[in-house]
């Protein structure tokens, strides 16, 4: 429950110019908004973490959510990652041909980039779009039709009853989907390289550039995304209010916050990876 904002202190000398007041509010506004948003996210995350160990987990619901999130978004992610593979190969191939003349290293370079950056981040972006919005829409409409209030009346805390299974399922599915997506992406890249620059797939597939650091970055990123996406999606859903318009706002908020969240985490972990691992 939002605490009551303390009334603004009365200015001592004469009437405070409303312009200054409004200006400060204008400047401060976005920061307080972002601040409150982050604070609420941390609160939901802490609650989820607490309930993870406190109450029994509804495993049947987790499995159902895995199906809902994983299987249903498989086709969509496969298409996107397939195209991604081909696009990256085409771009790097064209430039490498123009600049360096030799194409042998494309495969290795692409694999490294895939592990470090493209694989986890782009898959997570797609999961944020498909699953993040889905969660916000589903939970948002449950809030708007007062189902969440009904849950609370029957001693089922929404975070524990609804969100914990979804977070676990999403975490698990993010890792699984990222691996599958990378295989698909690499396969289509290999095909692309063969078709466009008739580069022999065997030379395309070489892993000498891969170092342990890449696997660590990959694992860190997928784990982080796997938690960030559902928490943001569910939080946006829970904060919905006011009829169908509320559900609309919740879904928009989910996809924007999730995309921003992913970009921030990507930046932080890439910087971390760069400084420590390479």
């Amino acid at each position: 429950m939002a605490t009551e904002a303390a009334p603004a202190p009365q200015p001592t000398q004469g009437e405070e110019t409303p312009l200054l007041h409004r200006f400060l509010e204008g400047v401060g506004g976005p920061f307080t908004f972002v601040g409150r948003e982050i604070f609420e996210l941390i609160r939901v995350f802490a609650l989820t973490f607490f309930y993870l160990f406190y109450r029994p987990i509804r495993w049947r619901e987790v499995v159902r959510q895995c199906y809902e999130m994983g299987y249903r978004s498989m086709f969509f992610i496969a298409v996107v990652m397939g195209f991604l593979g081909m696009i990256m190969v085409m771009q790097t191939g064209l430039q490498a041909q123009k600049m360096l003349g030799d194409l042998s290293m494309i495969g290795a370079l692409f694999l490294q980039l895939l592990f470090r950056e493209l694989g986890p981040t782009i898959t997570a972006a797609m999961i944020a779009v498909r699953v993040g919005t889905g969660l916000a829409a589903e939970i948002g409409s449950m809030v708007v039709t007062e189902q969440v209030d009904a849950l609370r009346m029957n001693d089922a805390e929404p975070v524990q009853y609804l969100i914990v299974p979804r977070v676990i399922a999403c975490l698990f599915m993010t890792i699984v989907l990222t691996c599958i997506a990378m295989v698909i992406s690499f396969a289509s890249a290999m095909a692309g390289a063969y078709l466009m620059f008739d580069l022999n797939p065997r030379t395309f597939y070489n892993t000498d550039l891969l170092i342990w650091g890449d696997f660590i970055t990959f694992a860190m990123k997928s784990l982080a995304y796997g938690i960030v996406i559902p928490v943001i999606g569910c939080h946006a859903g829970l904060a919905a209010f006011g009829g169908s318009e509320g559900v609309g706002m919740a879904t928009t908020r989910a996809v924007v916050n999730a995309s921003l969240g992913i970009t921030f985490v990507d930046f932080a972990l890439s910087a971390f990876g760069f400084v420590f691992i390479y």
Partner: protein
Amino acid sequence: MIGGRLLALMEQLGGMSVLAARMVWGLVTLRADRTEFWRNMYRVGVKSFPVVAVTAVLVGAITVIQTGQVVAEFGATSLVGWGTSFATLREIGPILIGLMFSGRVGANNTAELGTMVVTEQVDALRALAINPIDFLLAPRYLAIIIMMFMLTIIGNLMALLAAAGTAYVLLGVDMRLYYASFAELIELWDFFSGIIKAVGFGSAIALVSCYFGINTSGGAVGVGRAVNSAVVASAVSIFVLDFLLSAMLP
């Protein structure tokens, strides 16, 4: 199952092309509502600028970390400027800004249209003998495309600045050197191809979000579902378009 899904896909594509034709027709014959157009230009543009700006800055930094590091490995630190800005201008900028745009603008557009359909406001428009496509959809379609075009230009600029900054901080590449390699190796065409892609993404996002918005059904749950399918469809169309445009453009 596969047949059913393909059939649904074809039906959607058909519906979208019909809607696109009618929207463009509404624009060409200037029947689209001006005040609605300017209102949307403000809402789409100004409201999504901060989000796009933050994404652009982070994208610039991330590009430097990834591609810069590869180029440095080859010892060609002078090429860092070229490497990152090439990738940003052509590929990563339009895609990531497009994804953020499809979230911030596309989802919002679908949600708003969906709510108007579900609360019978669209029926009210038709009952007042006002064509909803001319009044609601055509202005939004144009506003989203124009705003995507402008925001990508600004986004690219911010991404490059952020990239230059990160290159200096992380790789110690001097700004002047970064700018030199940028000015020397980047052709104007790299910049334009990125912008063409951005406009392509913008029109896809606008069309998809308007289509799923106006075809919403089934109360509050329907709005949520419409936004979900709109954002998914925008993401797919961004990558498909990117592939096609990259292949066609030199």
